[in-house]
């Protein structure tokens, strides 16, 4: 096996890994903040891809340019999700919380199938197409751009959470809601912001993926599963953990596919999940 092929697998793995990382970061942020797992995360990703797709199909906006709109739409979607569903189940039993977000996922997917049919769609002749070649390694332009945008979004998310007033207030609420409240931080507002940012992350990833992925109503399922693995591996509630975990998963997927057998790609990723759960249940950077 040549060096080029391995280098190719590493580059591809890194690029998809960054996307997984950002999707996982949204999931982890929401979980860390209010101990609620968003089982509709994959469906939210699907919605963001459709949003980006329709902005292109109806308004002729290339996904690259519509990214800010997609992010805002998804952030709004997050705030509404909190306002109309999550705030009613904050104090409910865990099973009820699971049923609520799982139910939301079924509802969103069914609604999407009803509105847009289960057809596969794609963006014709996007601005970013084709690939570039560096030292015999091929890099897809849309994928490369997507991973750069995801990395930038990640850096911004990290700076926001650690360096701003709202970010610190989010961390405070995540670590001790009662103590945060008596310092004047309204937890419901923080939860709404958390949902907005969490789905905003998904908006970035989904908007970028529209460039090179088929858009269909079940597209989010595998990505959401990978995001769950990334959150478990990185450690529940840890944003930096998601970055490392997403990249590890991307690399395992592509290198495993290359070195062993590509038809078992999913198996390698879920094997990580099992190993983490058995040997390091708190994850790489986890608090729990």
């Amino acid at each position, binding site marked *: 096996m040549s060096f080029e092929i391995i280098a190719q697998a590493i580059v591809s793995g890194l690029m998809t890994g960054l996307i997984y990382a950002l999707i996982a970061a949204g999931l982890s942020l929401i979980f860390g903040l209010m101990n609620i797992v968003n089982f509709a995360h994959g469906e939210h990703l699907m919605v963001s891809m459709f949003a980006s797709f329709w902005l292109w199909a109806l308004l002729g906006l290339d996904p690259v340019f519509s990214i800010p709109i997609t992010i805002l739409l998804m952030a709004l979607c997050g705030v509404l999700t909190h306002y109309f569903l999550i705030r009613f189940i904050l104090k409910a039993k865990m099973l009820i919380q699971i049923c609520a977000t799982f139910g939301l996922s079924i509802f969103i997917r069914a609604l999407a199938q009803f509105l847009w049919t289960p057809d596969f769609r794609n963006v014709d002749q996007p601005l970013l197409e084709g690939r570039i070649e560096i030292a015999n390694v091929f890099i897809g332009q849309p994928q490369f751009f997507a991973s750069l945008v995801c990395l930038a979004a990640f850096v911004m998310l990290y700076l926001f959470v650690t*360096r*701003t*007033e709202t970010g*610190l*207030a989010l*961390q*405070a609420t995540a*670590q*001790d809601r*009662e*103590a*945060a*409240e*008596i*310092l*004047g*931080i*309204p*937890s419901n507002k923080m939860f709404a912001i958390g949902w907005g940012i969490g789905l905003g992350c998904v908006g970035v990833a989904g908007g970028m993926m529209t460039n090179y992925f088929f858009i269909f109503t079940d597209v989010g399922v595998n990505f959401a599963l990978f995001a769950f693995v990334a959150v478990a591996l990185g450690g529940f509630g840890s944003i930096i953990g998601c970055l490392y975990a997403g990249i590890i998963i991307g690399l395992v997927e592509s290198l495993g596919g290359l070195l062993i057998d590509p038809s078992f790609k999913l198996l390698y990723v879920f094997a990580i999940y099992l190993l983490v759960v058995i040997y390091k249940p708190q994850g790489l950077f986890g*608090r729990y």
Partner: protein
Amino acid sequence: MSILSVENLGKSFGGIRANHDISFDISPGEILGIIGPNGAGKSTLFDLITGYTRADTGKVIFDGNDITRMRPDRISNLGIGRTFQKLKPFADLTLLENVMIGSFARENNIKDARDKALEIIDFVDLIEKRHHFARELSTGQRKRLELARAMATEPKLLLMDEVTGGVDQKTIPGLVALIQKMKASGVTIATIEHNINIIMEVSDHILALDQGQRIAFGRPRDIQNNEKVIDAYLGTVDVA
């Protein structure tokens, strides 16, 4: 004119009357000591005042505002701070960040919030620990962290739940001195204490609770000689 008026406050959990028909006032600038055996309803009283628990009956008036059914963050904005018996530091943030989160209540930019937090951390004598994570601090230091964090919100009234509980003996004088330093800075204080010597030393008035009810309210000297209090609380200390 009192800064806090509690009128006929009551709360039951299931069949248990955690607080029943409690009334008292706090005057600006004083220290109110709250005593009572375990389970007397002292922490519940703080939960009711700060909005964590909704009262079944009665009213809480703070600084002219009826705060009985207000959210904790609103009550905090009006000027009530609190420390917890079971400490609640933000464990994965540094001491400085913990206190900054408090100072953001009044300061809007990072630099001002940071400067003010540093000033208060200095006030509680923890300046060399400012970059340590809260989880790395000792219990006594974490008590100071909670005081600093509450002070950072510039409260008019500070509720302290067993500040000297659970720390070693040699830490106590420093914490008592800190309470008096805070009083001198103009903050009105209500403090729950098990240590009778401390409560007698620092309080202007004392509220004694037993089984959810007020059994006495008055000057420390009067409380010391009150038969109900001796029975319910001081008496058990003597026996022990």
